[in-house]
């Protein structure tokens, strides 16, 4: 019987992977990050006017840019605006990017994003409420699809990051949002790589403690 034949067919993992990849591309982000040579090839094609390459380049990096600036700004809405501005600036200035300088494309792009966020940050005061309490309800612009635990974990992380010094916030955002290494962060912020490593170590410990404390106060396990 046909149904028995279908039921007996194994479901290859590659099908699932292809399906996830197609869905991800459809909804605006590349699932698998490309290696630097492939990214540089996209940059070249996009410079030559290839719109598909430009869109692929955009989708490869938009989540990373958002995650980076989200740690620097007060709300998701601000991060959305800054991501939009930064992506526009980058895509219209691809001619200025030179891979020969040794800067990976992602580092160049996140430098634009951080500068855009800094300009926004100067215009508005950073969020830091007097009570360090987590909100009982998710923020108005939070995804309603998030479960309560992950919404609170996210809120705890944002609260803990907001309590850092601006320079620490930038370093930790570049490390975990932009996924840059200590040397790349140091080059971008004109610091010594050793200093960046020390700061990261210290900040990671502080964030861990703070997040744990915030989660305990709201009854959620970290």
């Amino acid at each position: 019987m046909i149904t028995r034949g279908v039921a007996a067919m194994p479901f290859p993992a590659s099908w699932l992977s292809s399906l996830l990849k197609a869905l991800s591309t459809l909804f605006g982000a590349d699932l698998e990050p490309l290696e630097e040579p492939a990214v540089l090839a996209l940059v070249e094609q996009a410079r030559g006017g290839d719109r598909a390459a430009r869109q692929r380049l955009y989708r490869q990096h938009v989540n990373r840019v958002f995650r980076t600036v989200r740690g620097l700004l007060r709300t998701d809405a601000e991060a959305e605006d800054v991501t939009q501005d930064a992506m526009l600036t980058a895509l219209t200035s691809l001619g200025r990017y030179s891979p020969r300088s040794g800067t990976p494309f992602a580092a160049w792009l996140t430098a634009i994003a951080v500068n855009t966020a800094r300009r926004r940050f100067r215009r508005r005061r950073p969020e830091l409420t007097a009570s360090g309490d987590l909100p009982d309800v998710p923020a108005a612009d939070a995804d309603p699809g998030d479960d309560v635990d992950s919404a609170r974990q996210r809120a705890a992380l944002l609260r803990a990051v907001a309590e850092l010094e601006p320079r620490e916030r930038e370093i930790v955002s570049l490390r975990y949002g932009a996924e840059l290494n200590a040397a790349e962060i140091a080059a971008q912020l004109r610091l010594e790589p050793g200093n960046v490593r020390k700061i990261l170590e210290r900040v990671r410990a502080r964030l861990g403690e703070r997040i744990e404390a915030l989660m305990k106060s709201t009854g959620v396990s970290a």
Partner: protein
Amino acid sequence: MNETDLAALWAQLGPDARRRARIETRVFGWLEASETPLAGEWLELLKVDPVSGFAFAAVGAVSLGLMSPVGWIIALVLG
């Protein structure tokens, strides 16, 4: 909290699907609008049709030629 835990937690800060779609629509809408050749649009507006142009010029010349005697006759009649 170690490096991996923090990286995993930070991954939650990414935009949701709606927000991502909104950013993409705005970015590519702006890019496409900025790439529409403005010079072409202006030339289209200013484009002169030779036949219509000649016709308008001819009508204008005839009008000027006629207006002087007509004005003179009207002035004479009212006069």
